[in-house]
């Protein structure tokens, strides 16, 4: 699975992209966020308040209960501000 981070999320995490193996127990975007939060450090900070974040799966905006699968591209970012 590919994870993408944009804007201040990317800046705080210090990376814009990573590949991870999806843990078996993670079935939704919010479970993925909890999994990342559990890493601690900057991840705990960024994923502590999901209201500040938005997510996309395979380049489509999704809600937090959307399901995720191995091979998906999942992105986390602040609300878009437009161009």
């Amino acid at each position, binding site marked *: 699975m590919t994870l993408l981070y944009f804007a201040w999320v990317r800046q705080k995490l210090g990376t814009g992209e990573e590949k991870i193996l999806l843990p078996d127990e993670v079935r939704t975007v919010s479970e993925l966020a909890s999994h990342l939060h559990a890493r601690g450090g900057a991840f705990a900070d960024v994923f502590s308040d999901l209201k500040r974040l938005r997510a*996309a799966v395979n*380049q489509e905006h999704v809600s937090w209960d959307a399901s995720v699968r191995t091979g998906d591209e999942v992105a986390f*970012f602040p609300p878009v*501000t*437009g*161009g």
Partner: protein
Amino acid sequence: MSTRISIQRVDFDLSSEVTALKTSAVGAIVIFTGTVRGDDGLSSLILEHYPGMTEREIARHVEEANGRWPLLGVTVIHRIGKLTTGENIVLVGVASAHRQAAFEAAEFLMDYLKTRAPFWKSEERHGSARWVEARGSDDAALSRWRRAD
């Protein structure tokens, strides 16, 4: 309808974009260009986007515009990266047989680009950069286009 969508670092050439929109049935071309305003202490912007998703989302909105108005050509060029005062940010060009369709579709696409397109902006003022937060007034602009259904 011909469509051209480009997310790019380099500037665009207005004349060649307008020329590309001209076909024999075109009676009206509306071009919008947005530039970095120099008032308000702003010295530069950094624009970040979601490569792939941005293009797909813009294409979907161009298709929506094409379904709502009789369009002959649409061009959307959005720049990313660091842009300083006076530089072009965005060009939207719409060609149609008639002026009202061209005006409305161009305004619809601009409202979308300025509010919902997957871009994030960092503003530099007096040497310090800050991420811009999403604004409510722009959402109001976009909601004008919501269908009743």
